[in-house]
């Protein structure tokens, strides 16, 4: 059993598991963080962010970057950024032959954005398994990316700067870009449709059969709508994969722990990206900052994804604004897929927390944002061009994507509002380091708040969970075994387990210490009826089976041999018997044997006992029986006598 890690970012995981001849990919995350090396895309085609200007190389002639590469780079907010069509860092695809993957298990919509890179143009023939909400919301996330990138197309793909001899001469942080030569341009709508046509929808706790060899089953993970952990079972072994998981009470259905218990191997990914801050106080701080800003006449800008925590923010913020007497302040929500994510949020009641579910029984919409929308307190638009300007009221709170600040309507609003110190931008999304995200817009006058809300397990929650689940072996990201770089002394911010966990890292192949011993084989009742069990100990019986083994679809069945007369003479190529019959065992004592012989008409016996055993002379028959602990040797001449002696001996023994 092997595990290969293909992703560099444990929060956007991608693994391949080899188990019982089946190849399963676990999650297919796209690490969008690398597009922070690009210049932001403005909403209006042809325009560029105001602070970008051509790069004037100074310094040493020897390290000078050639012009073709230098033209691809722009200086922006004091950083060197790439000016070209954004490219994405995809999972490592060189190690595994993707055409031989049997299945892909997806844990949540935020861990599937690299799917088209894996399933399209690679010969992939397997099935992708995910829940219904993951499917629909994941598709929207992909479409959103495509729309952002396609609505302001850049003609050029920048590639010269990636050459090894050039990149090493570039200033940080561009110099430290992760494997830029493997970055790929974004997929298209066609690729999304084609990739998602390979999906099979699954329900929580559904048991899915993979080629008869394995059963996989998703269990709610409480992190976002439809998110799950996966349990991979053979009849005798159990592997659990924990991805984004939350033990907090937010809108999704709570985490289901019990199916994850007592695994042979527990694989853990997607722990919190902000171990230093707790979500609850951050939400409080978020609401506070937003309310103060609008109270003072400023606008609030919230970079966000089109679903997930954003919905919790609507709920908390509207409540807080009510309390502050600011119920009249409008909230705007901009995303090309906002219509759909809002509509879908209403119809996934089965995948929500009990509180939200019970509202649907009334029937009411599960999320309060439905009410906010109908009252006009929350308004959503697909972009700034679709009617936003007609009833745009400030001060306001504006939620917009993309949280990387490299694309989407958010870029426009930073340019628009960035110069006024009365406005505030509040970062809540933990996927992107906010200072790097903001870099191309610096210097900036607007107030910057950082309230990261990551509902995933933090280290103390993870350690407690792992202790409760009692796995035999634990597998975690290498980065979870030492404290964060910025807090080198916080040993509490690591995963702690005994025996010390196995670790994964991009590109590494990990052997999992699971030794398979058994396989399930079924016996037909007709065969069972022919067995002759012998009780060898109280409560334990044994029977010899000789049967035809039929293997079909990785399932094994034992049937009666079609023709018992032919086969017993069969031997292996080395001459050894295919099976032996009979087996005899037992510990008959001498007296038993003697008595039995007498009963069967052998009367002239002379018994000799010595250290190693005893000898019975059958004087009249001129035969000898040598007996010791575990064997009897019958030496005789006539066949008729031998057969009679055999019967006597077998009566004193047990045979199978």
């Amino acid at each position, binding site marked *: 059993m092997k595990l290969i890690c293909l992703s560099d970012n444990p929060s956007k995981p991608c693994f391949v598991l080899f188990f019982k001849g089946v190849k399963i990919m676990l999650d297919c995350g796209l690490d969008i963080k690398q597009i922070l090396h690009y210049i932001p895309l403005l909403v209006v085609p042809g325009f560029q962010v105001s602070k970008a200007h051509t790069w004037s190389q100074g310094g040493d002639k020897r390290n000078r970057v050639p012009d073709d590469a230098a033209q691809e780079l722009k200086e922006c907010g004091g950083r060197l950024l790439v000016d070209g069509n954004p490219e994405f860092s995809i999972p490592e695809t060189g190690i595994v032959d993707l055409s031989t993957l049997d299945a892909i298990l997806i844990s949540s919509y935020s861990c599937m954005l690299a799917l088209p890179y894996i399933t399209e143009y690679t010969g992939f023939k397997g099935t992708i398994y995910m829940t219904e909400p993951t499917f629909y919301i994941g598709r929207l996330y992909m479409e959103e990316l495509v729309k952002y990138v396609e609505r302001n197309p850049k003609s050029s793909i920048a590639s010269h700067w990636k050459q090894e001899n050039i990149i090493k001469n570039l200033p940080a942080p561009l110099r430290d870009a992760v494997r830029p030569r493997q970055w790929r341009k974004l997929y298209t709508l066609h690729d999304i449709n084609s990739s998602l046509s390979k999906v099979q929808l699954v329900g929580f706790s559904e048991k899915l059969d993979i080629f008869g060899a394995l059963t996989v089953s998703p269990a709610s993970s409480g992190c976002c709508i439809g998110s799950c952990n996966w349990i991979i079972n053979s009849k005798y072994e159990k592997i659990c994969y924990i991805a984004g998981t939350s033990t907090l009470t937010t809108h999704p259905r709570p985490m289901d722990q019990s199916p994850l218990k007592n695994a042979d191997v527990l694989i853990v990914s997607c722990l919190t990206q902000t171990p230093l801050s707790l979500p609850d106080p951050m939400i409080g701080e978020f609401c506070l900052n937003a309310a103060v800003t609008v109270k003072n006449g400023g606008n609030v800008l919230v970079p966000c994804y089109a679903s997930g925590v954003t919905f919790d923010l609507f709920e908390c913020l509207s409540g807080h604004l009510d309390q502050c007497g600011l119920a009249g302040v409008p909230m705007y929500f901009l995303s090309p897929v906002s219509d759909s994510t809002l509509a879908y949020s209403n119809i996934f009641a089965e995948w929500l927390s009990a509180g939200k579910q019970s509202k649907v029984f009334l029937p009411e919409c599960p999320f309060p944002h439905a009410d906010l929308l109908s009252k006009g307190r929350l308004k959503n638009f697909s972009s700034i061009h679709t009617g936003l300007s007609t009833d745009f009221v400030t001060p306001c709170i504006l939620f917009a994507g993309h949280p990387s600040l490299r694309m989407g309507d958010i870029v426009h609003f930073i340019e628009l509002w960035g110069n006024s110190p009365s406005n505030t931008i509040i970062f809540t999304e933990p996927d992107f380091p906010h200072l790097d995200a903001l870099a191309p817009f610096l210097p900036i006058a607007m107030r910057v708040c950082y309230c990261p809300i990551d509902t995933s397990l933090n280290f103390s929650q993870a350690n407690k969970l792992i202790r409760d689940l009692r796995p035999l072996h634990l597998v975690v990201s290498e980065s979870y075994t030492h404290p964060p770089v910025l807090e080198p002394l916080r040993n509490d911010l690591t995963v702690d387990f005994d025996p010390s966990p196995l670790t994964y890292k991009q590109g590494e192949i990990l052997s999992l210490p699971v030794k398979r011993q058994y396989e399930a084989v079924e016996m037909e009742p007709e065969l069972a009826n022919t067995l002759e*069990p012998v009780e060898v100990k109280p409560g334990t019986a044994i029977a010899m089976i000789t049967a035809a083994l039929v293997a079909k679809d990785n399932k094994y069945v034992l049937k009666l041999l*079609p023709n018992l007369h032919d086969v017993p003479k069969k*031997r292996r*190529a080395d001459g050894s018997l295919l099976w032996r019959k009979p087996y005899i065992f037992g510990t008959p004592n001498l007296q038993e044997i003697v008595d039995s012989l007498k009963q069967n008409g052998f009367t002239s016996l002379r018994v000799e006992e010595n250290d190693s055993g005893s000898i019975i002379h059958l004087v009249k028959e001129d035969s000898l029986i040598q007996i010791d602990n575990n*064997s009897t040797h019958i030496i005789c001449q006539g066949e008729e006598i031998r057969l009679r002696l055999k019967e006597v001996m077998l009566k004193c023994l047990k045979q199978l």
Partner: protein
Amino acid sequence: MSDIKVTPLGAGQDVGRSCILISLGGKNIMLDCGMHMGYNDDRRFPDFTYIAREGRLTEKINCVIISHFHLDHCGALPYMTEMVGYDGPVYMTHPTKAICPILLEDYRKITVERKGEVNFFTSEMIKTCMKKVITVNLHQVIQVDDDLEIKAYYAGHVLGAAMFQIRVGQSSVVYTGDYNMTPDRHLGAAWIDKCRPDLLITESTYATTIRDSKRCRERDFLKKVHCCVEKGGKVLIPVFALGRAQELCILLESYWDRMNLKVPIYFSLGLTEKANHYYKLYITWTSEKIKKTFVQRNMFEFKHIKPFDRAYIENPGPMVVFATPGMLHAGLSLQIFKRWAPNENNMVIMPGYCVAGTVGHRILNGARKIEMENKQIIEVKMAVEYMSFSAHADAKGIMQLISHCEPRNVLLVHGEGEKMVFLKNKIKQEFGVECYMPENGETSVIKVKHNIPLDTSLNLLKRQLVPADESEEPDPKHLKILHGALQMRGSRMQLTEPSVAFRELGLEEYELRFTCDITLEEEGSVSNTTDRIYRLLQREFPKCSVQFSNDGSINVGDSVIVKVSGEDDCKNILVSWSHQDEDIGSHIQRVLRPEQS
């Protein structure tokens, strides 16, 4: 082998009052708990005294499963849980849990407030009853207890309708509830995987019908409605608030749009908006087409269809009214019917099945004079039309479902006896499986046979999977023979290599060895005789190894030794073998011993 026992308390060779008890693997499960619309006395509820003469049912039943919200499937639930007494789990899907209490309350009101019955369940009882409900999602495998698991499949019939698979160990039963194998305007078709249950319990409402194409029926329906209103007539369509009503609304709504009609369409007040809201929130349970377009346009927001007010009954001019309940047995639909029936311009369209005993059933059978409960006689002059829109599988659909899930036995419920016989024969003929159709209170015993699972050592299995003879091509059809020792400890069955089993059990094999001397009068050297015997043995035992060993003796098989000694004219042949090679040993004796003269 344990058998599966099935006893219908209702819906056995009948439609209505669905309630089927099954017992498998030591678990007792109640499938549906419905009321009968054709009765107003004790017979309207299943006879729960069958389960326990007195006292509560909690100890007797492991769980109750409700397939969908129609009252003939859930109408007796509060009576059973609160008045007879049951505190165990009740399972249903989310939409069923949402809608079922509304219909129950509706039913209670009609029975208690309008008919003035006493000793009926109360609103409070409905609430406590619903608290015992556990919701299930489609395809989710729910562990009721350590051994009993259930799983829901999409059934189509109405919003939230589900078929259930019930499994205890290796035994499994699928109960279809009511289902529909063809997608309609708002729901998808029932689906099940090839789960090969021991028993499929299927409804058989339309056991003998093969319905014509849906499109034709729809066109027919629209034409009839249009004709009637054009002549100034009133159209009454008795429906249940949820289900068929929504489909017909979608149909009329788009037709009115297309034909630019202005005649008012009404839907009886109260439930409507609420009902439509449920459809909007449970869009995931509707058809693919509606799901795809719901973000742009929600099909359940109607433009032409307005709420109905009782006062409109006397309004002049044409109109179309959807009114509950669907079988004209009580409530608003019956009230409207009484007013409109005497006018030949009017029309009533019955869009679904009507249970025996209801007014709907009587007029469909051609009755033109109906006697009401208060002895009042209604003369029916209005046109009476029957349109089968009820979303049940027809004979073809039932056969389709059987071929999808490949059951080992089939049991028919929820249908009429004579029609069942026809279907039963057809099923036996076509699929070669046993088919049962018990009456209410009659128990069918279904024999089941299962393979026995063995924990088999991987070493043993791998060894056996290589072909016995290397010269043979690895051919999947080639017989592979497995030989091992099966240890049985309690319920654990473990198959290993014999030596491993003996070691684990602390058994030592006992060796029984035989040695015989054969005297031969044969000329020549010892080695000549040995060679001759060697060749003879090779011929006799083509499949065994026959080899010389270092001391000049011949080894055959695993344990047989043949050694020649003696003088030039007389040889002594010692043959020694262990009991496991008895076949070889005795055979050597036969071929080497000189014929006994």
